[in-house]
């Protein structure tokens, strides 16, 4: 039963991500009574996670981008074995991206120090034109004060960023990166993502609850 719910939650979440994706688009829309992320997350009960259970788990993806220091960053190898939160967005996104990054930071502030020290946060910009290394660095510095590990900002060519999204199984961003997936993937110390997060009012609490579950506590 719980597996069935998990599958439904996953399917519903994918639809929601597709519908919610991103912050801006040019066309008009009207409010709809679609289920909220927190409602969907209730259906993930039984997985033990507050976030959205991923079944089957997704392996930590391999993709190569460039960090804000201009150095090559191989996601799969350079974050291997560490709890890692991966999120795609862009810096001029007014709503979902900054809220999500602030929620991630607040979630991290709510976990034990041993977990916080292991955890990496990786933000990949989907706006390859506007988000230069300097813009990305300055943006992320607004969210990570006081945390032991700085948020890692990654960028690349359009094809590199597309490849990263495909590797991470998120909806491919469109409209010059402005319409993008709002999913945050959490890879554990075992290099699998068993849970993901969508924007919701209790996202910080979800992150704080689930991070210790996937971290290496030995």
């Amino acid at each position, binding site marked *: 039963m719980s597996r069935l719910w998990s599958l439904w939650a996953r399917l519903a979440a994918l639809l929601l991500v597709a519908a919610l994706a991103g912050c801006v688009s040019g066309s*008009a829309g*009207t409010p709809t009574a679609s289920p909220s992320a927190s409602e969907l997350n209730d259906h993930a009960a039984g997985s033990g996670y507050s976030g959205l259970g991923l079944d089957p788990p997704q392996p930590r993806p391999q993709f190569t981008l460039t960090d804000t220091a201009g150095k090559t960053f191989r996601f799969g190898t350079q974050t291997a074995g560490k709890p890692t939160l991966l999120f795609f967005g862009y810096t001029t996104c007014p709503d979902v991206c900054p809220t999500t*990054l*602030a929620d991630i930071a607040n979630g991290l502030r709510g976990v034990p120090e041993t977990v916080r020290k292991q955890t990496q946060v990786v933000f990949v910009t989907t706006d390859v034109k506007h988000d230069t290394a300097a813009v990305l660095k300055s*943006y992320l510095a607004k*969210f990570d004060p006081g945390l032991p590990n700085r948020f890692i900002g990654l960028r690349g060519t359009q094809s590199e960023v597309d490849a990263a999204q495909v590797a991470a199984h998120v909806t491919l961003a469109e409209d010059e990166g402005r319409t993008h997936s709002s999913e945050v993937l959490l890879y554990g110390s075992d290099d699998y993502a068993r849970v993901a997060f969508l924007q919701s009012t209790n996202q910080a609490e979800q992150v704080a609850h689930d991070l210790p579950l996937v971290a290496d506590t030995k």
Partner: protein
Amino acid sequence: MGAVRRLPLSMLLAVLLVVAGAAGLVRGSIPSSAALSAAADGTAGPQQPIVVSGGYVREPANGVSAAAYFTLYNTTDSIDVLTAVDSGAGAQVSLHTDGMQHSAGLSIPPHGSVSLAPGKGHVMIEKLYGPLKPGQSVNFQLTFAQAGQLLLTVPVIAIGAPAPTPEAPR
């Protein structure tokens, strides 16, 4: 980033006088309560057709655009529509719901409410006139099809700090 800029009161009054005839909106360190009462804001009493609560602007991390959130309560027996939003904080203001730009206006059902919240909708302020920092307030002029114009003053809330909770009118 630079320190929070606070206008001296005299300059603020002068600025207010200057812009009052034009836009009627100014961003500055106006105490929220004073601005609210002076503006006869929707929160002033239960007689107001539209009551706004829980309003805030999230401190922008990018320095170029900001998002404002609030809840609108329609206390009347008929539908009303938020048709336009102007702000003293930036040159370009638009309403977004469900991740999309909303050109047709936002309907508030009779005795119902509509909340703009992260992931659900926001007022997007672009071409900011200056930095928006916690401690500052931002003025908005909301235009409704039925209720007319309403001046709203909301605080800038720091990145990561909790948002104000909307309160339904009694």
